[in-house]
């Protein structure tokens, strides 16, 4: 079970990195970076998981059987999501300006337009 769970994280991360390395479009590159970054969200949640655990919300509704999962990891995943969104938005803004200046989004073609 551990192999499968953490295998997903490694696979997502490597798929994202592969996309970044071979990308031919800056927007595609930013999306690949978000894919690689989402691996960290899953990793955080998986580290905090307990078999049969429930959400760390302790309301008085039907009593939750079993233990709660790790709330610290969920708080860190929240931070991760927010920072990821900020980075993605900033990179997309850069891509907009690159396209205006260079007329292309292909990272390989950028050096030819340098003046």
């Amino acid at each position: 079970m551990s192999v499968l769970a953490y295998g997903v994280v490694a696979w997502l991360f490597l798929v994202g990195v592969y996309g970044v390395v071979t990308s031919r479009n800056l927007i595609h590159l930013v999306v690949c970076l978000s894919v690689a970054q989402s691996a960290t969200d899953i990793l955080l949640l998986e580290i905090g998981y307990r078999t049969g655990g429930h959400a760390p919300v302790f309301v008085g509704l039907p009593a939750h059987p079993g233990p709660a999962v790790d709330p610290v990891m969920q708080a860190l995943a929240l931070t991760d999501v927010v920072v990821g969104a900020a980075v993605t938005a900033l990179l997309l803004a850069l891509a907009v300006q690159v396209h205006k200046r260079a007329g292309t989004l292909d990272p390989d073609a950028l050096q030819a337009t340098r003046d």
Partner: protein
Amino acid sequence: MSRRARLALFAAAAPALAVTLGAGLAGLPSFGGQITSYARMLSELAPRQRHITDVVSAISFDYRGIDTLFEEFILLSAVAGISVLLRPLSDETRQLPEDKAPDRTIPPPSPAVWLLAVFLSSMLVLTGIETITHGQLTPGGGFQGGVILASALYVVYLGTNYVTVERFQPAPLLEAYDGVGAFGYVFIGLLGLLAGAGFLSNVVGLGVTGNLISGGTIPLLNLVVGVEVAGGFAILASEFLDQTAVIRTRRR
């Protein structure tokens, strides 16, 4: 960088990545096993100590409140960076597109689309406020609710047009939201110092567990973060929208 150079750089870095990734994955705890004693302690202590039911909020806005302060400033600086990057440059100008066919008017959105936009945006505002204010009770909080609030503006844009949505989101107001939200967090943190405790100490009355007003500073911090995130994401959307709608190269 050419494609070949990029691949060569990655090939050189790949072994280091493989070793780090392998070592990191090998050192992970087994999936679904024990959680840390820190987490167990917080799960048991937080509801009694802070009178909340959502422990994640208590961690984000109380036990690890400084982290969230920096996180909020990361978001603020990202929004500021995007505003600077996407400003009209020296060879650009802000103007609405010229109507090349004034005799043919653009048909307004169909009543169904308009009705759906009105319905959806009001529901989104309601859901956003609900998510922000119930952060200490149920999953949610300032960050999630703020994004929902900002998305109400996108729906207004889908149902109407650029000029209408600009009236809904005057830029100075959005920037004020962003700044007031960010510095509201610092201000609430300073309340702790004024009360003679540490920065970001939970010094406000805690209330009754499960009530809407409970948890001391946690709902207040959720509120300021919600204002900041809603303003920030609305600025993001309008900056990107301006790029396609009104910012164009000045004619020589």
